[in-house]
């Protein structure tokens, strides 16, 4: 097999830093994903399933902010719109088939994000980061207000979905089966996203994050790349929203507004943006803390304050998030052009270091 780099091209420091933590974390999380329902109660399985759906949602934010540098404060718009779409399909048309609900969520998320990208990202001039942040925030808020006043869609009370998700005539109730469907979809979303951000397309995104002006002078249409990521992330958020609505049996205006959009930002920042794994860890950590604190009598009234303080400390003092404690900046950004050396290369490095040619 062709080697992409000679061993002597690797600097000493990089050889020392070649130990990678992310694959280990990936394996641990994958094992946890597979076995969790075997060790927890049915009630906790439902709670963890909700977390998995939120993990899909959090990955969609990370693609935008962590990889493409798009600060979106309206990610819940795609989530909520897709949730409402599948709720309307269920209540108005009686359609609750899994094979249809997933594409509906993806398509709705994609269409809404495409329309927003067209307006915010694909103008004549490159938009300022604050313009995108405020644009997405405003769009989310406007949509939340709109559905809250729309009687046909349940108004401020939202919509309940009375039928369970189905495959043919088989009903999928929230529980172990729903867990494994959500887990499979999370795994697919993670793997597809990982492939994208580690491809040469991901190299362009890494360049955009560091200096998008420079990328323009290299001939890259920066806004087109951003719009692609924005739409892809919108589709993923839509998938999460569709699953969420059926899992909870309910969708309300709050699921597309500022509160959920802020939560998804916190998942990313708390866990570690720009890693795909960070937001997953963020969801697990924040939702677990929330669940635990809200169950303790002494904290029942104060848990949001406590959670806020914990989040503030991490976000201010560790901008790379929880994952930043164990993953180096170099590993986080990754390498796009060089294949790591094999064992024979290691030997030649040792020879060179000893002065033996």
């Amino acid at each position, binding site marked *: 097999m062709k080697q992409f780099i000679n061993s002597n091209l690797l600097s000493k420091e990089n050889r020392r830093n070649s130990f990678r933590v992310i694959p280990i974390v990936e394996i641990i999380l994958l094992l946890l994903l597979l076995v969790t329902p075997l060790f927890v109660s049915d009630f906790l399985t439902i709670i963890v399933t909700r977390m998995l759906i939120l993990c899909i949602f959090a990955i969609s934010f990370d693609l935008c902010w962590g990889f493409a540098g798009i600060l979106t404060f309206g990610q819940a718009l795609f989530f909520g719109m897709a949730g409402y779409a599948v709720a309307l399909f269920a209540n108005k048309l009686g359609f609750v088939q899994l094979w249809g609900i997933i594409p509906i969520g993806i398509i709705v998320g994609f269409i809404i994000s495409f329309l927003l990208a067209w307006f915010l990202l694909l103008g004549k001039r490159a938009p300022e980061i604050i313009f995108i942040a405020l644009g997405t925030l405003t769009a989310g808020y406007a949509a939340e207000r709109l559905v809250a006043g729309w009687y046909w869609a349940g108004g401020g009370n939202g919509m309940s979905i009375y039928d369970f998700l189905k495959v043919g005539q088989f009903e999928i109730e929230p529980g172990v089966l729903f867990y494994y469907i959500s887990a499979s979809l999370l795994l697919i979303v993670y793997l597809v996203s990982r492939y994208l951000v580690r491809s040469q397309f991901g190299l362009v995104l890494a360049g955009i994050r560091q200096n998008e002006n420079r990328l323009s002078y290299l001939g890259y249409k920066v806004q*087109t790349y951003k719009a692609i990521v924005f739409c892809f992330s919108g589709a993923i958020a839509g998938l999460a929203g569709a699953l969420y609505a059926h899992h909870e049996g309910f969708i309300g205006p709050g699921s597309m507004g500022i509160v959920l959009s802020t939560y998804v930002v916190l998942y990313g920042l708390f866990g570690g943006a720009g890693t795909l794994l960070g937001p997953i860890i963020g969801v697990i950590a924040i939702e677990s803390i929330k669940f635990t604190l809200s169950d303790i009598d002494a904290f029942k009234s104060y848990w949001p304050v406590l959670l806020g303080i914990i989040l503030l400390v991490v976000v201010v003092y560790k901008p790379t998030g929880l994952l930043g404690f164990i993953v180096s900046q170099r590993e986080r950004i990754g390498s796009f052009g060089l294949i790591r050396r094999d064992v024979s290369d290691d030997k030649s490095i040792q020879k060179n270091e000893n002065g033996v040619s």
Partner: protein
Amino acid sequence: MKLLEINKVRKNFGVLCALDDVSVSVNANTFHGLIGPNGSGKSTLLSIIAGAHYADNGSVVFDKNDITKTSPEIRARKGLSLKFQITAILPELSTYDNLLLSIQSSQSIWKLISSKSKGILHDKIMDALERFKLADRADTLAGELSHGLQQWLEIAMSVIREPKLLLLDEPTGGMSPEERRATGELLMPIKKTCTLIIVEHDLDFIKDICDNLTVLDQGKIVDTGTVEQIKLSKKVQEVYTTRV
């Protein structure tokens, strides 16, 4: 054959007139230097050619295409490449990845997603790394390179794209005399395939590598011609004795 024609370009920044009816022609496969005192408009002219600023009046014609109002990425796709005055490498990417990113800009998005182009371009990148003395730093983060090597990396990023016209804004800024000499040696071989416009304060360096020079002062052209003609130009001598 004329590769670049700048016709009566004017640029104002508020009340300041940075360029005043400037016209310059650059022939293909020549090295053209822009010199002049600080604030004479050299970098502004280079920015207008690259698309960082747009001219208020006049036109910029590159390879028979009017590019006066086109965006930087379209100019880059037409074969124009810029090395910034302040080094603009991607510091958190490796040296190799900086070059890989630079060379892949003409690839389709689908090819980038499928990563098909990476293997094909490897030899070309390795050649550039060897040529610019960066081979033993291939896997080093670009931000960890010395200033001189960062400058070379940025020149390599421009050269590897095989542009028709390369714009260099002070490529030897902050370099030692030895590094400047080496930079000149690195640039000379590209003359066969590329046209160069260079802004530089080091007159010895620019005289050594350029065929033609244009001297600017206060946004206007003082004189233009071959290096020998400029050396003998009284108008230029006047500018450099009275203003520098």
